[in-house]
């Protein structure tokens, strides 16, 4: 039995906006895999909820005319993993969200909820950061598009204004065309766990596949919100696909990441992981892009 004051079910996006404006204290609920847990813990007990779970128009992955990949915010993790467009253009996202919780959570959990929750450990977030995702928000004043790095404000807080809901996640064509990527979730068990550190890397190689033309790397749990390691990215650009260059790139992430010392993992261990995961994820990305690592 959950302590819920009232539940309002939205029938359309405009209706959801109207309900949110009518009930400014209300919390949006989608799949419920985070919100219901928080209610049970007492953190959101006794609150009003606006459910957007019935809005099928927010489900599914499509390719827009300009080549932008559009992921409806209510698309479940398991649907993303099995989506042919995802598999074709940004397979790593499907692999990343396939590591969330267990099968039941992946069937109920949505990518919109995963990002709006604002937590650093979200399995989708580091990959979306790495692929320059854009968040689409719809509210009383229309549609806003915000780069995902700007969407995350601080731990547990995202740029969601009164009456707004997240309606889509967009991956621009320029961000994915020619890139291959790999995500490593580092957790204490192989299922039903949150990331100790998550690392998502992608790379675009030169035509001869000898040089890294572009490298993007993002982390979960390396700071209070998901983050890019820009210094390391800069250092890797234009480098040959050698073991030494990959190692150098990996070491450089320590100039960017700022993991916390906590009972979940010590700071020095997380720093060690940041380096190890960067090396392995970049290596795997280069191999996926058809390159080889020169010793």
């Amino acid at each position, binding site marked *: 039995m959950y302590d819920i004051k009232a539940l309002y079910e939205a029938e359309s996006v405009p209706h959801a906006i109207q309900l949110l404006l009518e009930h400014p204290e209300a919390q949006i609920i989608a799949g419920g895999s985070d919100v219901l847990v928080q209610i049970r813990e007492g953190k959101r007990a006794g609150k009003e909820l606006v459910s957007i779970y019935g809005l099928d128009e927010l489900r599914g992955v499509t390719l827009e005319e300009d080549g932008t990949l559009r992921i409806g915010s209510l698309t479940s993790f398991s649907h993303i993993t099995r989506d042919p467009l995802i598999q074709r253009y940004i397979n790593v996202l499907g692999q990343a969200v396939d590591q969330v919780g267990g099968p039941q959570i992946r069937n109920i959990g949505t990518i919109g909820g995963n990002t709006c929750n604002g937590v650093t450990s979200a399995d989708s977030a580091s990959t979306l950061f790495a692929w320059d995702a854009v968040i689409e928000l719809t509210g009383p004043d229309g549609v806003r598009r915000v780069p995902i790095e700007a969407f995350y404000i601080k731990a547990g807080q995202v740029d969601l204004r009164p009456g707004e809901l997240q309606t889509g996640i967009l991956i621009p064509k320029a961000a994915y065309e020619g890139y291959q990527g790999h995500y490593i979730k580092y957790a204490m068990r192989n*299922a039903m766990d949150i990331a100790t550190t998550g690392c998502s890397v992608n790379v675009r190689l030169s035509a001869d596949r000898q040089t890294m033309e572009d490298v993007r790397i993002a982390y979960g749990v390396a700071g209070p919100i998901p983050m890019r390691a820009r210094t390391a990215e800069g250092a890797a650009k234009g480098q040959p696909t050698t073991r030494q260059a990959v190692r150098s790139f990996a*070491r*450089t992430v320590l*100039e960017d990441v700022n993991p916390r010392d906590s009972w979940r993992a*010590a700071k*020095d261990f997380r720093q060690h992981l940041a380096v190890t995961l960067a090396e392995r994820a970049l290596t795997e990305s280069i191999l996926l892009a058809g390159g080889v690592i020169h010793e």
Partner: protein
Amino acid sequence: MYVGKKVTRVDAYDKVMGRTKYTDDLCDKGAYVARILHATIANGLVTSIDVSQAEQIPGVVKVFTCFDVKEKHYFATAGHPWSTDEEHQDVADRLVLTQRVRFYGDDIAAVVAENEVAADQALRAIRVEYEEYPFVLDVQEAMKEGAPQLHEDYPHNILKHTSIRKGSYEEAIQEPGLIKVEGWYETPAVQHCHIENFICYAEMVGERIKVVTSTQIPHIVRRVVGQALGLPWGSIQVIKPYIGGGFGNKQDVLYEPLCAWLCVQLGGHLVKLDIPREDTFVSTRVRHAIRNHIVSWVRPDGTFAARKLESFSDQGAYASHGHSIVAKGMGAFPQLYPCDNVECDAYTVFTNKSVAGAMRGYGIPQAMWAVECHTEEVAARLGMDPIEFRRKNLMPVGYVDPFSKNELYSDTFNQCIDKGIEATDYLRKYEAYQHQTGDVRRGIGMAVFWYNTAVWPISLETSSCRMVLNQDGSIQVQLGETEIGQGADTAYAQMAADVVGIPMDMVHVVSCQDTDVTPFGTGAYASRQTYTAGFSIRQTGQLLKERILSYAQELTRMPPYNLDLVEGKIVRITDGRELMTLGELATQALYSLTHSQHITAESTAQIKSNAYSFGCTFAEVEVDIPMCKVKLLDVVNVHDAGSIINPALAEAQVHGGMSMGIGFGLSEKMLFDPKSGRVLNNNLLDYKLSTFMDHPRLRAFFVENPEPTSAFGTKALGEPPTCSVAPAIRNAVYQATGVFVNEAPVNPHNLFRRFTEEGLIEKEAPGHV
């Protein structure tokens, strides 16, 4: 014959089809719901509790606090048989609600409401004020002069200290040429994580209190509820339906006294107490964290000259099962690897932490972690093969323990080790995995374990059984030994069918224990169910059969010694002719106009024996050094549990125990905040219970040496499977990496620390290479 066959569980269909009723299924929906308010300090005194806001919340019936407990009936919670000798009784240190707080999570008040939401709202609205005392979390810190004291009668927080002395350690270590191997080995507090949290409900029926509870020990619960409420034991009725696991946590009287007390306060109204998972971690029971110090003095030929063990067992805040746990582990030490000169000291010490109680293995998983980690180190120091070193020193055939009179009748250890070697291709792999380099390495290792079956001669061992013949020739069987998921009812049905001589489907084991009607029994604990119940089933079954054949004499005019009961038929032995079915006899017996008889048998078996139950684990791992991760590739348990009653159930039992051992070895640990004493990871996300995805295919093998003391040749298999898994994994990690991890679990945190210390991982420094 059914014993020894893979017959289907008697409860399989009901469980698979969801027809089985558990405590919550049985509780009337009109029950009040109770929730417990737990202390948020680790040590101190409750000075006031303000319930005024909480009692205003709609749906709240009443809030009871520690100040409402006027009659102070202190009670002991351990699920041990009552000792009529006061000296041997468990420590009575609990009240249903306490003003004196001894751990973060102690029970200080309870809300009773019409529903869970109101109860939870009320919990959040209660205001508590405390007088805080300093607290102590470390077992050895707690023993120091000046440490905060938890209980007045136990100076230095020592609940109990016992010793073993054999030969002379001090003299023996003077022998020239000895090699000294010394180490500290530590295991953490872990939790049972049974699927069904603790739950019970209570209501008054007339002047008596009926308690339905998820317990392993209904007859003990009856006694303790009586003691805790100051009521005659017979005025309490305890009913135990099917339970969703216990693993020893429910071998403690947890919250039945509180629930019954709340029920009485409310004039007998039905009250349900369903403990959330978070509270199950903190406020029920945990496995004792034990820190062991072992010193071995070894001759270069690989024999022990002298050995010393010091064990520090972390009891947490209340006595519960107390010293029994570490005492069992200490008792195993001089037996497993016998040595002429041994010195052992075990201390059980109170700390301001969650209360430790019984958990599968009862001190032996902790002891085997220490002993088998140490054994591996001794072999390594001597440059001896770890298995050859063990074979040379393990308890030999014919060994008799002078205290328990347990005898090792077979060459169990060598037989189990041989089987493990064959099953894992150990010799080839051990050779192949020596001297590896690189980031990812493999290793194979093993560990043995010591166990015994029941608790004789430390405690009472008894089992009572009742069999009642129905009109159709089927029988009911009732026992005080409980089904807790392990398959006891099925084993009992197999045994009863064989002894009485009827088909198994004519045996109805009454699964539910009701202390008003079930024969007395102390319940499911140790690994005694099949062993102890076997005696009373055999004895009672024979009695029933005698009575049946005696009645058959009246009907057939054949002397009873010329008759037998075979698969439900009265057979004349002399010519093998079937004279009648048992159903025909039973119908006659109950409806006869000349001599009607209710044919029944009931008896108590005195069990003044115990049985060793030994075996080993082999584990193969792949260690990713930079990732600080262990992948378990293969794990094999080999057991000599005597004659196996049901091979399918035995295998399942071993699998479950191995799974528990994998978590103990690789991931599980309760974390206590050093600043507050609060448990940090009291949920199934942060507490790393190993999942299906962390398991390789579990494999179980058996060496069947029939146990001569046993009614069916069988001995312990409930707890043994969990005893040697963790050190086997640790020893495999050692073979792969050359690094000893002495603190369980072998999780990434510990591996990072150890790999860094041993130079396998370089400390990262920011900057370019």
